[in-house]
């Protein structure tokens, strides 16, 4: 490999292994999973240890447990006791062998006939540890034949538990029944589930699972209802007075730094950390930042000039900034840019994705609805309710009603495995995808994790999940796509009344073509049916010993595809060959009052679910509890309802004849729900500031991050609600705050040490422009951008094929924008996995799930795009031409004017003296003047400065 010669190999294989030494440190690997900080437990155990040893009896007293302690007990201790000890040592089992009961705290602490089990905090002389760690069969617990010896890891857990003072949330009541709060306990009290669940399923596996399940669930619910009150994001919003002003305590009296209430909260953070912020960004940088953050586009030359001019002369710069912000927020560009943010959250895309990628030709109506919502500043609570239950809102105006229906496209645009051949699995998968999206988008909750088991990290049981699943299984989803193989899972689009007056795409075919299609469809349909019959007969024959003719199956498939495509196309037309108004969205499934069928009916339903061919989710009905999430293991139904996280579930009871979407939607924005508003303002903060107050914007659960500025988060959430859910007002507040205006490049050695990740916002965060911003900016700078909204997308317009075309050649003009496409990127076609190159290269989300924060990679393929792509070259060429036309001739004066013009257009600043020299050199070396100017423009577009927003 001579290629290697002369190449840096600073380390090569020369960094040899030095020494390998066994680590003696205790491993907390599993435990650490549950904590945000890796050392959390270790630290907390040490402090607890000191405490415990000091006054060991105090730790025994009932006192509220910390979240960490609780999680530790519930995940590490209780399951072990329950599974290995309760059988002989619990009230529950009615046994207390050796005088010992382990299912209450008191029982554990008082010990048994042989003595106390342990003194909390003291590991040394613990009888409990001795017995569960014993190898002598006479002493060993659990005894031989009553279970396996407990593992070393479990021993370690117990030892740690005792060391930290044996935190134990259990009360004197029976384990698992006690402290559950709210609606769940109500349903329980009506019917003691353990035991009764067995009836009607006697003896089979289902019964065993059912009872095991119920017990597990109850245990989990009991602890989770405690847990949820303890985790910060589920606690009520706190209206606290804004902290005092001042970056430091010394500065507190003058308090001149902050401009807005937001700043006072940020200042409080500085004081806690002992850091001070950097100075403000320059006016040019600030204006560029405002324009991109609010509109996704750079400021025009005129904007820049007038801003700089006024910056120096204006009486109050703050007023000037407010003016700019207000002006920008009224633009179409603002609506488009912020709609795109929400589309990331809504996992917007235009095809099924997964194994068979079928286009959604009507997804764009939802896209336009989102843009319109930002255009009209739709109140955020209403914004959410319409997306989840727009079809259920009272509305007499036909047009408005149609709009509300379009909003529910939110639930329909997800990815789906259209080839799934079990219709019931397809339905539950779809409901799961909807639940996942709704809860993550609105409340940062990973609800869908509870599909197959109780949530491991959130206060959500599988039963609660099932209650919500019933809501979505009672909902008809009109995703409007041809089916997969053998037209599996074909779904019609949502048909809107013609009177709504929405614009439609022109019909792509002439009347003659349509007539031919109608005739063909009929012909192929009858051929298909005939062949199907023949093949069925043939299969019967084959079973009886005849020969199976496989060759004709292919023919059948081919016919099927043809029929599908034609019928799908024809379904978009009225009888008069006009285009129907179609969209994606949801409606209620039909309702039929339940007949008193009793267990027989239930059994039938279960059998039906097990039968893959027959769809069972055809009506408004509760969802069965699926053991381990397995659609073929349906147990008793769980009444539809919202999870009782805030004690108000009873106010949102689902009527028998409704799916419950309206109840779910209004619960999400209910005043008792503190999470929705927090998640909303945190998303806005992250989009403006570059990092959320809660870093994990889509996950407010226990595996997510905790807020750096909890009071600020609650302040903003409260302001959002008080303003009538005015999202624009929140954006405005952030855009006009001092913290938003900070420099992003000024060094701050002291703050770096205190807060290396800049969580406390001691300077602004520079960010890579989003994919759309990069493309749209290039179009704006070359005076080519056409901001006119585009009807549908190029793909929907040309969408005759029934599959998303993936061959690169054929994608030109379909998926891939042509150089002459000048619309804003939001209007480009976005089939899953096949998005336009420029967007994909710069980290467009893949639309598979909620994504509130974009990734930002930095790879050579991006460099190659800017250097070698034809479209970029065309743009560079056009900008250079414009510059030459603006300032013609060869005079030195015009040379400089041209350079300044280009710099300001692309980077929103003037070139430095050094840079003028560099440009001069670049042009002199170029083969022609024109080539030189193109090189300059391409060069600037390719710089890091263009791509990064300071």
């Amino acid at each position, binding site marked *: 490999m001579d290629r290697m010669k002369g190449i840096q190999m600073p*380390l090569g294989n020369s960094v040899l*292994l030095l020494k390998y030494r066994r680590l003696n440190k205790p491993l907390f690997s599993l435990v650490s999973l549950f904590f945000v900080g890796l050392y959390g437990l270790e630290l907390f155990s040490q402090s607890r240890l000191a405490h415990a040893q000091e006054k060991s009896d105090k730790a025994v007293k009932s006192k509220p447990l910390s979240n960490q302690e609780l999680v530790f007990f519930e995940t590490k201790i209780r399951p072990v006791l329950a599974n290995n000890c309760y059988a002989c040592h619990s009230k529950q089992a009615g046994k207390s062998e050796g005088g010992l009961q382990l299912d209450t705290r008191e029982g554990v602490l008082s010990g048994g006939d042989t003595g106390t089990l342990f003194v909390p905090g003291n590991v040394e002389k613990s009888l409990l540890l001795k017995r569960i760690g014993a190898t002598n069969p006479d002493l060993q617990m659990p005894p031989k034949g009553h279970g396996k010896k407990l593992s070393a890891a479990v021993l370690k857990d117990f030892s740690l538990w005792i060391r930290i003072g044996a935190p134990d949330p259990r009360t004197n009541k029976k384990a698992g029944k006690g402290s559950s709060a709210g609606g769940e306990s109500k349903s329980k009290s009506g019917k003691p589930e353990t035991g009764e669940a067995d009836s009607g399923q006697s003896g089979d596996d*289902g019964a065993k699972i059912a009872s095991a399940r119920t017990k597990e669930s109850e245990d989990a619910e009991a602890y989770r209802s405690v847990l949820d009150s303890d985790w910060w994001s589920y606690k009520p919003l706190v209206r606290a007075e804004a902290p005092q002003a001042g970056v430091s305590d010394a500065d507190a009296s003058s308090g001149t730094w902050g401009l807005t209430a937001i700043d006072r909260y940020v200042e409080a953070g500085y004081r806690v950390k002992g850091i001070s912020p950097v100075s403000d960004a320059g006016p040019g940088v600030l204006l560029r930042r405002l324009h991109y953050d609010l509109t996704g586009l750079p400021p025009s030359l005129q904007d820049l000039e007038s801003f700089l001019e006024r910056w120096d002369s204006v009486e109050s710069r703050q007023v000037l900034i407010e003016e700019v912000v207000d002006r920008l927020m009224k633009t179409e560009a603002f609506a488009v840019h912020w709609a795109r943010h929400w589309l990331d959250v809504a996992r917007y895309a235009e095809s099924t994705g997964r194994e068979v990628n079928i286009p959604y030709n009507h997804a764009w109506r939802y896209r336009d609805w989102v843009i319109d919502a930002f255009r009209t500043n739709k109140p955020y609570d209403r914004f959410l309710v319409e997306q989840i239950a727009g079809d259920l809102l009272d509305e007499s105006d036909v047009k408005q009603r149609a709009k509300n229906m379009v909003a529910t496209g939110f639930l329909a645009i997800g990815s789906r495995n259209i080839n799934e051949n079990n219709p019931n699995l397809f339905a539950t998968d779809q409901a799961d995808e909807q639940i996942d999206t709704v809860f993550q988008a609105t409340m940062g909750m990973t609800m869908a994790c509870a599909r197959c088991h109780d949530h491991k990290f959130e206060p959500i049981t599988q039963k609660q999940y099932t209650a919500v699943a019933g809501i979505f299984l009672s909902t008809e989803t009109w995703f409007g796509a041809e089916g997969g193989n053998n037209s599996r899972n074909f779904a019609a689009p949502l048909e809107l009344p013609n009177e709504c007056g929405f614009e439609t795409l022109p019909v792509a075919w002439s009347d003659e073509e349509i007539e031919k299609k109608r005739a063909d469809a009929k012909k192929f349909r009858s051929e298909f049916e005939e062949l199907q019959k023949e093949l069925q007969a043939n299969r019967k024959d084959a079973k009886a010993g005849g020969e199976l003719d496989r060759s004709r199956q292919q023919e059948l498939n081919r016919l099927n595809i043809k029929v599908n495509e034609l019928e799908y196309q024809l379904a978009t037309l009225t009888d008069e060959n006009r285009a129907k108004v179609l969209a994606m969205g949801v409606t209620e499934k039909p309702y039929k009052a339940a007949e008193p069928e009793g267990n027989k009916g239930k059994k039938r339903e279960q059998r039906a679910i097990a039968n893959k061919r027959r769809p069972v989710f055809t009506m408004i009905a509760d969802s069965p509890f699926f053991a381990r999430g397995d659609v*073929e293991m349906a147990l008793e139904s769980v009444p539809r309802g919202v999870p009782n996280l805030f004690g108000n579930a009873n106010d949102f009871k689902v009527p028998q004849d409704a799916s419950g979407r309206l109840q779910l939607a209004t619960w999400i924005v209910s005043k008792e729900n503190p999470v929705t508003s927090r998640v909303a303002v945190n998303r806005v903060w992250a989009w403006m500031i570059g990092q959320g107050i809660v870093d994990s914007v889509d996950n407010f659960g226990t595996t997510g991050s905790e807020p750096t500025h909890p009071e600020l988060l609650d302040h903003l959430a409260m302001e959002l609600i008080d303003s009538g859910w005015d999202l624009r007002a929140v954006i405005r507040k952030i855009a006009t705050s001092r913290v938003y205006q900070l420099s992003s490049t000024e060094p701050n050695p002291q703050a770096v040490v205190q807060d290396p990740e800049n969580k406390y916002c001691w300077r602004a965060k520079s960010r890579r422009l989003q994919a759309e911003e990069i493309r749209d900016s290039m179009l704006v700078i070359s005076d080519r951008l056409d901001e006119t909204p585009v009807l549908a997308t190029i793909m929907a317009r040309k969408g005759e094929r029934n599959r998303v075309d993936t061959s690169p050649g054929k994608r030109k003009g379909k998926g891939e924008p042509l150089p002459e496409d000048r619309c804003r990127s939001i209007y480009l076609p976005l089939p899953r996995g096949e998005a336009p190159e420029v967007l994909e290269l710069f980290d467009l989300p893949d639309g598979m799930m909620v994504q509130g*924060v974009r990734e930002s990679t930095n790879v050579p393929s991006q*460099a190659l795009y800017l250097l070698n792509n034809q479209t970029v070259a065309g743009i560079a060429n056009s900008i250079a031409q414009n510059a030459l036309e603006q300032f013609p001739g060869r005079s030195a004066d015009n040379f400089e004017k041209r350079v300044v013009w280009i710099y300001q257009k692309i980077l929103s600043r003037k070139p430095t003296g050094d840079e003028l020299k560099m440009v001069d050199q670049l042009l002199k070396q*170029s083969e022609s003047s024109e080539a030189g100017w193109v090189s300059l423009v391409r060069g600037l577009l390719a*710089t890091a400065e263009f791509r990064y927003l300071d």
Partner: protein
Amino acid sequence: MPLCNQRMNLLTRRSILQQTACGFGWLAFSALSASKGLASPIVQSRGDGGSSSGSFPAKAKRVIFLYMRGGPSHVDTFDYKPELEKADGQGGPRSGSKWMKSPWEFRQRGESGLWISELFPELSQVADDLAIVNSMQTDVPAHAQATVRLHTGTSQFVRPSVGSWVLYGLGAESESIPGFISIGPSGSAQNYGNAFLPANYQGMRLGNGNREVDETQISNLAPLVGSERQRRELDFIQNLNQKKLQTDPADQEIEGVIHSYEMAFRMQSELPKVMNIKSETEEMQSLYGLDRKETRTFGSKLLLARRMAEAGVRFIEISQGSWDHHGNIQTALASKCEAIDLPLRGLITDLKQRGMLDETLIVWSGEFGRTPYAQGRDGRDHNHKAFSLWMAGGGVKAGLQYGRSGDFGVEATENAIPIVDFHATLLALLGLDHEQLTYPYAGRDFRLTDTKGRVVTDLIA
């Protein structure tokens, strides 16, 4: 099939930029300059432990990491469970579960007698080159977390991927092709991300999970203008980038842009050559199964991997999707295995012929395994407590079947290897001491293995 597969992306939202844009922690590294990003602090830490008792002679110079996304079933492939066969249909460990034996027959292969199922007839021919580990363990039975953990050592924090660490430790072998390439990844960019390591250690993504790899995967490779003019433009760009970097010398993103241009420039001539697998002889192509529909996709990726290895890529990852067999395992697993079996044998044979096997470490692994009890009638659920992986070449002890996952494959019982130990071992095979390979960030020295890690010496020849 549950949508847990989709949740592969659960962690993508923690953007790498977010984590690193302000990564001033590496102040020690501020002397870093343009394309000399390889000068690295590890040199400093090297001084500490010069005495090398117990060090291993490093053989491997590069890694080909074959990542089987979704969690292949170990008890149907590389972990023989005769007890499971006997218990088929009886009650399993979870309430209501039932053991499900493997529908495929296992046999001892090669002179070393490794147990491999009939799903891998071709790979079995080179069984004596494999080291099969049956006692792998990870923490969570969820795709997203387990995948990121396999790739970075933790799913809680944003940390550099193994490939980035390896490249950082070994240095680039070539200036004209990235030292870390991930073919067809899907899911979080963290899996090939550099986190706080300098941006030139980020993996380059080639294609996505959905598409086949050929030259079209990297578009814009052909220069638009003559090389002289392009160099001129590039110099101009880089000058401006340098100036930008000077305003904030610790800005890794700018540093990353600078590096990406130099690499891009050189890739234009080098990458098309490497990607041109059609230049291989017909015989070679059929060795990798390119002449068969079933094996063409994976085979061409493996052949490409070999060509990249020759070209000096340090860490080549190939992702192969859809091993998440909650249902329909009988058909689906068989066809997945068929797609990779012959190409795998081809790769090992080819590397051996070229004398490259000793210096190339091949790893085949999923993010976790599957349950030996059934899910539904014809599927298996996630199992993080036991799974199997195998390695070949690169100084591993060939012909070894290591560790046990009990009688049924539920949980690793003997010589359990957590991911962190696997990482330590992988680095050791490359001659890198996982305790010495550190990078200063946010006030402390970070390692791939953090505070843990044990080199499994039994696996090293």
